[in-house]
């Protein structure tokens, strides 16, 4: 099949990015940032608290981690629900034991359905960010703008009302966005999103409704990616996190502070055979004298307060 003439035209072939969302900049060219107490590594533990509906529509794709079997896919529905009933309480104990200050990315519908869960995660020092409505309400290219606007407003406002907290951050289900998502987030008073994995530090992200920040939440280091997508062992998960910790810490000797961001899920690491691995990692991090456990907003505020 012959190709359209456009296939041989390169309208964006010029300096910088091929879009206007952010400026091109190499990490090493940027200002060094100091974390409080002269710590080297900000550790951002980001917990996905998720609702995977049984009647998944899968538009425009099936969310990774969602239903895969013909309806009713009870195995995946209940296994994900396990995290919100059981796994999260193992997380809470571990966080308390090792002094972690977690950030919870919460599907608003889950918070709406489970006031007890919302109350439980808010007992200790924490931050809540909005993780959309549920895992089957995706944001995607070509989505009807009005429909998405309602989805964002319902999700952000809903979590604010239920929690009474400011809700400054956003994580899209499946980290997927439409061409309008950043504008809608800015218009709803969101300060930062965590979907773009192109950096190890925060950077300014342009929208027609004003700038927001992009926060570096690693997909590569998420438990779901390593254990479920890559099918690596639990032991390898630990090794990968520790190797990443070592590498980022060593980079701080010549550059500024760095961020270790760990996206974890109670339906994954909250299992009895895995929780020990999370504890092993947290114990290691807690023992290090160069680690600062912080929420996404703690990190962003420290970062922006130092920008020249």
């Amino acid at each position: 099949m012959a190709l359209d003439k456009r296939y041989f035209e390169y309208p964006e072939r010029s300096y910088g990015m091929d879009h206007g969302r952010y400026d091109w900049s190499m990490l090493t060219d940027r200002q060094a940032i100091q974390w409080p107490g002269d710590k080297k590594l900000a550790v951002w533990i980001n917990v996905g608290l998720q609702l995977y509906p049984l009647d998944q529509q899968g538009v425009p794709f099936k969310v990774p981690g969602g239903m895969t079997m013909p309806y009713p896919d009870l195995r995946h529905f209940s296994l994900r629900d396990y995290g919100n009933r059981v796994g999260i309480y193992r997380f809470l104990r571990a966080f308390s034991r090792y002094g972690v200050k977690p950030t919870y990315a919460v599907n608003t519908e889950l918070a709406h359905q489970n006031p007890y869960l919302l109350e439980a995660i808010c007992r200790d020092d924490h931050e809540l960010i909005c993780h959309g409505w549920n895992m089957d309400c995706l944001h995607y290219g070509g989505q009807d703008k009005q429909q998405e606007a309602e989805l964002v407003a319902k999700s952000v406002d809903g979590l604010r009302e239920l929690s009474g907290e400011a809700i400054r951050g956003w994580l899209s289900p499946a980290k997927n966005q439409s061409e309008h998502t950043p504008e809608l987030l800015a218009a709803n008073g969101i300060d930062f999103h965590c979907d773009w994995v192109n950096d190890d530090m925060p950077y300014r992200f342009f929208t027609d409704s004003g700038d927001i920040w992009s926060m570096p939440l690693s997909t590569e280091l998420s438990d779901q990616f390593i254990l479920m997508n890559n099918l690596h062992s639990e032991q390898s998960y630990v090794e990968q996190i520790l190797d990443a910790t070592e590498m980022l810490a060593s980079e701080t000797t010549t550059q500024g502070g760095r961020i270790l961001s760990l996206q974890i899920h109670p339906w994954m690491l909250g299992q009895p055979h895995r929780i020990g691995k999370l504890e092993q990692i947290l114990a290691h991090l807690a023992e290090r004298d160069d680690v600062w456990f912080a929420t996404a907003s703690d990190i962003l505020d420290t970062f922006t307060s130092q920008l020249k």
Partner: protein
Amino acid sequence: MKANPGYYDYWPYENRPKITWPGGAKIAFWVAPNIEFYELNPPENPHRKAWPQPAPAVPGYSIRDYGNRVGHMRQMQLLDKYNIRGSISLSTALCDHHPQIIELCKERDWEFFSHGIYNTRYTYGMSEAEERDMIRDSMESIFRHTGQKCAGYLAPALSHSDHTIDLFAEVGTELFGDDAGIYTCDLFHDDQPTPIHTRSGKRFMSIPYSLEMNDTIAFVVNKIPPRQYGQILKDNFDRLYQEGEESGTVMCIPTHNYQVSCPHRLKAFEEALDYITSHEDVWVTTGREIAEYYREHFFEKAKQDIENRVLSLRGGSNHGIG
């Protein structure tokens, strides 16, 4: 369509004319960082989708951008540490988008070879003239921005046509004579360089580039854990080094700044580089240098050996091999 691309002849991996690399080295070792630009919203190609999601495909696009924003400097510093000059498989539009990266590599005398213009523009569906223009554009970009006469080619996103290798060889000759368009990285049939048939009859070679050692294949397709990848690299080296005693071999590590430079992967990669470069009789080199050295010293011997041991046999029997 052809049942066999016909680029090379069968040539048994035994009793070949002995290769010795410069300084008596047993193995030629090169690292080929792919420095790529993927477009957020490329024009559609009916034969292959660029991204799994409708644009903007944030997950795939953004991790590749990480390679340029964050990963490149990490890998470059590591290669500096072990005195390795990279041989860059370059999306040549990167010369326009990110000239700083090109400058840094130029300062280090790294090699630039063509990997097409964008890694989101596939060869599939191109007419011969369109593909020729794309290849020419990419080689001219490299010359304009680096002064180098592009010696090698790895087709964008490993997308090929039946003419790809012929066109690359021909455009190289048109632009720069025998200095350009002399080797391909697109074939994985051997652990030593081999002569390649092109329709222009030019002295053209395949230089082993290794799909198996390619970090993206290892991490994304084969889903190998980082430390195991480091071990595989060492094992690959050990065997090629041992066999290089008999006749010089080639080891290549093709990398991507968005894979090997991620924080959880760099350490294992470094250990492998440290291991490999700590051996004696390793020629740490570039793709072009291997190709040129081979062309000068071994190309004709290889052709002759193939003729004597394989083709004559085929001609002399009526059932043939091929």
